[in-house]
C-alpha cells in the first residue's frame, strides 16, 4: 500500500522536505501516518490534516493511493 504525504509552509521548512511516499501493509490512521512519515511522536497543536483535499481529524483511516497533507493554520485572503 502506497500513501502520498505532503507538508506545507512552516511545517515543510521544519521537516526539511515537501513530502514522503509511505509504504505500509495495512490502512493507518492519519495520526499513525504522521508518526511513521515524520518520525515524530508529537503532533503540533493546531496542525491541520487534509485527506484527498478534504479536511479530516487525526483518527480517520488512510488507504492505499490516498494523498494526505499536514499543514499549519491557513492564512490566505
Amino acid at each position, binding site marked *: 500500500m502506497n500513501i502520498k504525504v*505532503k507538508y*506545507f*509552509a*512552516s511545517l515543510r521548512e521544519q521537516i526539511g522536505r515537501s513530502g514522503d511516499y509511505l509504504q505500509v501493509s495495512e490502512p493507518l490512521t492519519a495520526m499513525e501516518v504522521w508518526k511513521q512519515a515524520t518520525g515524530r511522536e508529537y503532533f503540533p497543536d493546531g496542525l491541520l490534516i*487534509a485527506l484527498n*483535499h*478534504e*479536511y479530516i481529524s487525526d483518527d480517520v483511516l488512510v488507504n492505499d493511493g490516498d494523498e494526505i*497533507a499536514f*499543514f*499549519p*493554520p*491557513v*492564512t*490566505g*485572503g
Partner: protein
Amino acid sequence: MRHIEILETVFDPCQIQKNYQQKSMQGKTGYGATASFIGTMRDFNEGDDVAVMELEHYPEMTEKQLNTIIDIAEDKWPVQNTLIVHRVGEILPGEPIMLVVVWSAHRAAAFDACRYLMEELKHRAPFWKKETLVQGDQRWVEKNTDGHE
C-alpha cells in the same frame, strides 16, 4: 456560474471583474447587485514594515475548497454568478492579493455571500503567507485575523 483563478503574476482586480462580467453576463439584465472585495498587500503587519510576501498554496486542494465554499454560498443565497481570484508567489506592497465578486438580484444576498466567501476562504483555503520584513527577517504569518476585528 462561477470562475476561480489562481494567478502567479500581478493582476488588475477592477479590469478582471469588468472583463469577466462582460464575458459571462452578456445580455443578462436580471442581476441588480454586485458586491466585491479586494484584498491588497499592506506595507505593515503586526507593527512591522513588510517588504515582500511569499504566498504558498496547495493547488488541487485550493480549487476543491473554493468550489465547496461557492457551493455552500449558492445554497444559502440566490447567487447568480461568483468570481474568485487569488494571487500566489511573490507579492509586493500595494499589489492585490485576492478578489471576490458576487452577482445577485438583491443587495442583501450579494453582500452576505461576498462576505461569507471571504471569511470561509480565509478559514479553509490552503494558502500560507511568509513575510520578509524591511529589516530582512522572514516569518510565516501564523494566524488569520478575525473578520470582525
